[in-house]
């Protein structure tokens, strides 16, 4: 686990955001909103589901901080919140960084241990040869 991950988001925020992203319809909604703000009806059009069902998905996305809703004239529009996506992306990235740097350090340690081990063995070896003589 990467401790750095928790600096930006709490665990429950992460849970909510990843749960929101684990659904293909909700990911498609985000992709649609990446093209620009849209009303519920526009968002719902490509999906074979009722408007209330789409609204439910939008609520999940809003609670996860992935979208926000605001009014323009008489229309209620949904907007992508890229900041939260960025945080998630950073979170995954920091997990990888954590392990990549750890493994690089482990490489160095193993190299050192192996060197020491081989030296030890050759010492024992020559000692044994000495005794034999």
């Amino acid at each position, binding site marked *: 686990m990467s401790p750095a991950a928790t600096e930006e988001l709490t665990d429950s925020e992460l849970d909510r955001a990843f749960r929101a992203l684990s659904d293909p319809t909700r990911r498609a909604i985000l992709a649609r909103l990446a093209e620009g703000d849209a009303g519920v009806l526009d968002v719902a059009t490509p999906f074979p589901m009722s408007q209330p069902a789409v609204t439910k998905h939008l609520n999940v996305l809003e609670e996860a901080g992935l979208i926000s809703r605001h009014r323009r004239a008489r229309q209620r529009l949904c907007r992508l919140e890229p900041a939260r*996506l960025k945080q998630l992306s950073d979170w995954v990235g920091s997990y990888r960084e954590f392990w990549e740097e750890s493994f690089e350090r482990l*490489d160095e340690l*193993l190299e050192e241990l192996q060197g020491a081990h081989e030296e030890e063995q050759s010492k024992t070896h020559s000692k044994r040869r000495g005794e034999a003589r």
Partner: protein
Amino acid sequence: MTMTDTPTEIITPPGEPLIRTRRFLKAPPELVYRALTEPEYVRRWLGPRRLEITVCEADLRVGGSWRLVHRAPDGTEFGFHGEFLELDPPNKRVGTFIYEGAPDATATETFVCERVEGGTMLVSTMVHSSVEARDMHVASGMEEGILDSYSRLDELMAQEQER
């Protein structure tokens, strides 16, 4: 300097609450296993250099416990602890894993050292679970989302920047 540019493979199978990491190491399993389990070695490699390890303890017996504390440059500490469930040197080490910032969630962490030509393939698997099946479900959704969504996120971010 590092010996090679060895890739770290991070896998999150869809529908399973686990993260699997695979990495080749140029040393035999006997050495890798010791580096993974003995505190004097663990404190020398686990985590990025900017994090200081202030506590690193392990009672290397089945049922024995381990604890590790990382300190960030700003002084924030991150503690982790768990219990050893299986110790089978030099092949396998299984233990529980609890992040002290979220002590209700217990994960299971397994290290397997596979002997391969020229060294060891280290496979680490972190299975997230919790007492209640519901929480398990949440964890599943979360991990499934991670890499599944990763390329998607990049796409979205790229689109967002073009706007």
